[in-house]
């Protein structure tokens, strides 16, 4: 044991010595009276970028000025969880006031790297399964955040309203994406009660999305695209298949309606980011993150696209169009 301890000590000493050398060469620390927020995401894509912008906008609207009283650090893991782990250490070492991880793997990496810096995660679908918190109402410790669980029942209602006769819904998703798998499981729980049957197809990469959508032709009455990063990235592939075969395509996020979905109810990620920003503000104002319940992304905006509906062979009920928050022409 002594041998191991001594060896370990020597190792630590060597590591510390070289680290001090490196640390000495690093840039000067941020000004003391400014607040530092460290944001990290697993990848950069429009929805996650919008979430980040939402956080920053809320802070700047509440008296913080970026570059003066507010310092934003931002890094993405570029799709690699090992890099996410390293970014987490990087941030913990910088000692920011709050860390905001976007997406499940980034959040897990940050939460396992620190137990004292406040963490406000966002765009995590199932924080319990990800073990970020053990209780949604009273997270405890240094972690809270916003879950982007979709209002799936509302989504199925929307499909029912547009297509009273529909029975089967095809759902393309990436089986490698934790968020998407949670959504699919919930969908399958909900669907039978609403008279739907869910047909799953998988696409692990954006290049596979087209083939996955085509495999649904003839088997389903409608296609629903959940908030799955892979499928949303290749949304146009699904829309093309829907138009060619008269299968209406619905989406889980409102931004996809502009890209050709018939309609969607829900939040856009900018709003999710703003909600997260509010939690960040609360923590900056001295609230204990462990006592802030994990919130669900809210928003019941209805986006419809009558042109897309026509291209896919259905007509939107007039009162649906009248009710819509936004009608895409």
């Amino acid at each position: 044991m002594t041998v191991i301890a001594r060896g370990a000590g020597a190792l630590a000493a060597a590591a510390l010595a070289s680290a001090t050398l490196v640390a000495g060469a690093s840039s000067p620390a941020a000004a003391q009276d400014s607040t530092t927020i460290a944001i990290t995401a697993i990848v950069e894509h429009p929805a996650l970028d919008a979430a980040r912008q939402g956080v920053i906008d809320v802070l700047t609207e509440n008296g913080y000025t970026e570059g003066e009283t507010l310092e934003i650090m931002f890094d993405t893991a570029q799709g690699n969880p090992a890099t996410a782990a390293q970014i987490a250490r990087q941030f913990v070492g910088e000692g920011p006031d709050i860390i905001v991880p976007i997406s499940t793997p980034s959040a897990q990496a940050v939460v396992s790297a620190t137990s004292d810096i406040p963490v406000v995660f966002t765009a995590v679908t199932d924080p319990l399964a990800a073990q970020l918190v053990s209780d949604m109402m009273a997270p405890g410790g240094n972690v809270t955040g916003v879950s982007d669980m979709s209002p799936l029942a509302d989504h199925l209602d929307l499909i029912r309203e547009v297509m009273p006769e529909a029975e089967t819904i095809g759902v393309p998703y990436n089986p490698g994406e934790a968020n998407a798998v949670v959504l699919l499981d919930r969908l399958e729980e909900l669907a039978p009660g609403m008279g739907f049957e869910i047909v799953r197809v998988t696409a692990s990469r954006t290049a596979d999305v087209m083939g996955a959508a085509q495999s649904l032709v003839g088997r389903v009455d409608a296609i629903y695209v959940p908030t799955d990063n892979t499928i949303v990235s290749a949304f146009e592939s699904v829309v093309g298949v829907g138009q060619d075969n008269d299968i209406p395509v619905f989406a889980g996020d409102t931004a996809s309606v502009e890209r050709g979905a018939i309609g969607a109810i829900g939040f856009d990620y900018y709003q999710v980011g703003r909600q997260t920003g509010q939690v960040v503000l609360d923590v900056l104002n001295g609230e204990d993150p462990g006592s802030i319940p994990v919130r669900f992304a809210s928003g019941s905006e209805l986006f419809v696209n009558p042109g897309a509906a026509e291209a896919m062979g259905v007509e939107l009920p007039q009162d649906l169009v009248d009710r819509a928050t936004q009608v895409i022409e």
Partner: protein
Amino acid sequence: MSLVAFLGAVEIGLVFGVIALGVFLAFRILNFPDLTVDGSFPLGAAVVATLIVAGVNPWVATAVAILAGAAAGLVTAFLNVRFGILHLLASILTMIALFSVNIRIMGRPNTALINEETILTPFLDWTGALGMPAFVAKPIFVGIVVLVVLALLARFLTSEYGLAMRATGANPRMARAQGIDTDRQVYVGMAMSNGFNALGGALFAQTNGFADVTSGLGTIVVGLAAVILGETILRSRVMAVIVIACVLGSILYRIAIALALNADFLGLKASDLQLATAVLVALALILPNARNPLKALGRGRAGSRSGGKAAGKAAQ
């Protein structure tokens, strides 16, 4: 760079050092270009996470993860040796199949270990009681594991059996003429190589609190970069030094990423990370040879000759 970030880079570098050893074993010793690692790394993570969550002792879980990785290596070797499928393609087949297998094993794409007992827990409790923060204790623990693995591997490669494996990679025809069963060497070597890769995955899952199927992406690139970086910086013919160089290369690669993450002041954006990492690694490869420009010039021919030799070895 802060101390936490530096030690984090060392820790993740050590974890990927185990993978560099696996890659070294396949590419350099066996001369088997093996891409299975992109699947066997997350396989190790998936197995260890699933077993730990199911309540299995973490050491046992880690051992099973290594065996699972070895089995994956055997599949690749089987496809290649038994059916004559080109090694690259054989390993690609195993790698893509493992993506589905890993999701099957976990039942979902991501398993969390943040609140579970891992092989690190007793050590972290002990060092924590002594007042050592976790970010210092973790790399020490991983370092000890890597030292044990290094010692065993160096010992193996200089044993009679290890020499037979090296002969198999260097010149299979000659090896067969010496009575070496080269097919069996490929099986054993590939099993060992992917056992290392899975051990790396198991360590990564336990030190970072999660196993994710997407974590395999590009592991082979990182492993190869580490091996070549190590070879460039620490040239030697002594086996023990050569394997240490692999781990050293891996740590340097992670430090390059840590530096790249710190390069914001150069006006780099977050999306420039990969480019900055590539430039830093390229510099690490160039600088040792460019210490003395005159000498480098004079050595031009000699340098190209040794480069040619290395390339020749890789192409065999």
